[in-house]
């Protein structure tokens, strides 16, 4: 009899206990893969590409300014009297694919790029990558007239190319870091002390100061290919400020170039000599494409 009662109780128990159980644990398989987003506020750290993407069907209109040297003093209003600019349009073909074009006033240069993210940082689940990996490649064409005595004047002599791999990780909500080995090939270089091929390694970091303000640093170390007596490694330090659909990047830099080829191979100013410039990137995004997103459909 006792035995039977025990059996009965055991059988009844689940009926009674069912009420107490955490129902969700019945379906929670756990370890869902979740992509890490927002490593950087913008698709550029400052000058260089970041591991961030603008998103599908998004048009990012970018207005970039680099002023003159602060060290030029009050006579040049600390560099603000002169400015180089680049106007650019980036478009998100997919979540992980962006193309863009731009034109810079420096060397009247037209540039275009394609940027693809094969691996996005994720947490949980199988095969979650601890880092994002991004591939970017671009071309630049200078449309400035060649000097009258120039020896090489074919269209190919106006072209330069770059390609890079960006490996980045958002370590915490506030801190992200990326490393980007970059290769730049110029069909024509200014002097015999320069190689056509330049190799550089970029390091970009972000430290969020508040939800909408972040400190950013962007440095490219030129490994080989440039005359180090003349050319310097570009270093930019600044702040990202986000207001709704805009991102303002305000910064100080020794570089004037606003595409990979230009700032890596064409930076001659030095932080050590105080030859730094104020600059800003202004980004405004527009979502193109179908308007309706009906809930519950």
């Amino acid at each position, binding site marked *: *009899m006792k035995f*039977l*009662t025990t*059996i*009965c109780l055991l*059988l*009844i128990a*689940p*009926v009674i206990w*069912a*009420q107490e159980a*955490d*129902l*969700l644990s*019945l*379906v*929670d398989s756990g370890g*869902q893969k*979740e*992509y890490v*987003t*927002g490593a950087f506020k913008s698709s550029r750290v400052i000058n260089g590409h970041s591991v961030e993407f*603008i*998103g*599908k*069907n*998004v048009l990012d209109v970018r207005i970039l300014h680099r002023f003159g040297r602060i060290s030029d003093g009050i006579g040049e209003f600390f560099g603000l009297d002169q400015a180089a600019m680049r106007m650019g349009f980036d478009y*998100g073909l997919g*979540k992980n694919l962006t193309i863009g074009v731009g034109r810079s006033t420096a060397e009247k240069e037209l540039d275009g790029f394609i940027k693809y993210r094969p691996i996005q940082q994720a947490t949980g689940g199988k095969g979650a990558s601890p880092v994002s990996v991004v591939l970017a490649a671009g071309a630049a064409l200078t449309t400035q007239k060649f000097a009258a005595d120039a020896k090489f004047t074919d269209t190919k002599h106006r072209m330069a190319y770059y390609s890079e791999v960006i490996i980045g990780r958002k370590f915490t*909500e506030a801190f992200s870091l990326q490393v980007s080995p970059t290769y730049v090939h110029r069909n024509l270089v200014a002097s015999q002390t320069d190689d056509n091929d330049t190799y550089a390694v970029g390091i970009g970091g972000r430290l969020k100061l508040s*939800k*909408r303000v972040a400190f950013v640093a962007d440095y490219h170390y030129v490994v080989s290919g440039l005359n180090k007596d003349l050319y310097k490694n570009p270093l930019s330090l600044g702040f990202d400020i986000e*207001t*709704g*659909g805009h991102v303002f990047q305000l910064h100080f830099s020794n570089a004037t170039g606003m595409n990979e080829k230009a700032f890596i191979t064409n930076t001659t100013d030095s932080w050590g000599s105080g030859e730094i410039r104020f600059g800003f990137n202004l980004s405004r*995004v527009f*979502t193109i494409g*179908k*308007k309706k*997103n*009906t*809930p*519950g*459909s």
Partner: protein
Amino acid sequence: MKKTALALCMLLVLAKAGLAQKYFTKNGTVSFEAGTALEDIIATNKTAASVLDAATGQIEFAVLIKGFEFRRALMQEHFNENYMESSKYPKAVFKGKIVNLTPALFQKPGNYPVTVKGVLEIHGVKKEITTSGSLAISGTTVQALAKFPVTIADYKIAIPGIVSDKIAKTAMVSVNCNYAVLK
């Protein structure tokens, strides 16, 4: 005596099998609208997990905040990074009870209005809510529909002044889940 006990026992076991059915879904739809005349803000999540216990009327939902999809990528980023802080509070959870439910209901196909009462946790803040909805029961599947308002300030979600005209004070949340029998 022995026989009675055994019969009672069997009855309870059968009752459990027949009535204490649990239903579940892992791809329920939860969407919300929090737009104003200045901006449409609509997001949909099609990966809501939910379990419904027919015996007790208990009903629970878990929704990953990062699973909400917006038309505008930047809006989605701001939603996660600035408003919901989804890395810190990855899920919204509702645990409640259908108050006017009788287990026998599940034996009879039909459309039934229900009232659900429970605790909704969003952005780390728990708040008791009551809402009405409906259950459409047909054989082995159950469809649950509900629509209820969520006052954003109740969940300590900070909206800066500069965008406060664009975001509604109250978001309308819609739930549409198709449940199958949980085995």
